[in-house]
């Protein structure tokens, strides 16, 4: 596809957009993984949320 004399600018603009969108997606996914892992660890230690009833904690 011939992008004309300013091809470099068009390509760079699209590349920047891709980088930013990819960054957002990676952030959301990585954040979720990190939080899911933290929740699993806390669950394993027996801490329950208030809505799940009384909490027992292993020392």
């Amino acid at each position, binding site marked *: 596809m011939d992008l004309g004399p300013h091809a470099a600018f068009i390509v760079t603009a699209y590349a920047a957009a891709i980088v930013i969108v990819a960054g957002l997606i990676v952030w959301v996914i990585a954040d*979720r993984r990190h939080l899911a892992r933290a929740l699993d660890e*806390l669950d394993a230690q027996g*801490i329950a949320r208030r809505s799940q009833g009384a909490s027992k904690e292993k020392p």
Partner: protein
Amino acid sequence: MPVIDYANPSRFVALADRVLPWLMGATLLAFALGIWSAYLAPDDYQQGATVKIMFIHVPAAWLGTFGWVLMSAAALGTLVWRHPLADVAAKAAAPIGAAFTLMCLVTGSLWGRPMWGTYWVWDARLTSVLVLFIMYLGVIALWRTIEEPARAAKVVAVLTLVGAINIPIIKFSVDWWNTLHQPASVLRLGGSTIHPTILLPLITALVAFTLLFLTLHLAAMRNEIMRRRVRTMLMMQADARA
């Protein structure tokens, strides 16, 4: 500290788990359509192929301002109705809106260099979008600085509503000050001034990017709810040990 009832957010997370796959699918479909139509779109008789930058610059600008409008609505939800999900919605939207505002500035700058001869000019619209970006960063900084989420939400809500004055300034700046950035050509009285062969890909791109925003926002809201659960559980753990 007021005890937060998690029943509502739990229902929300369940809803998000069901809705997100569909949203993701719709987003991918819309982008496939958008990319294909952008590829086929003709060159502008004045700007040549660089008009294709418009298909990412305009959606980015739209989402940057939409993000702040969303945060303002959430701010009202926090201050007026004390809705717990409003806090979560506001916090999740800030980084996403900031990223799209940055995309608007970068793509606009790269479009401006071949078209206007300069990467930057201090005209009304560019300046007010830059100010919007700085305000986004201020909001994010404020979220991170106040530790307790419920308190942070209320303070950020005030800042968001005060900063909302910038949104009409951005929209109408090209009408009030006739400087360099081109005037409104899509949403204006009398209909759009863009030819359909370029308008249709643009609208497809707008839809695709908006679906992307909503997907990211929903996922980020789910993350934020998880983050607050983790925080509460850590505090309970610390309490139990004390």
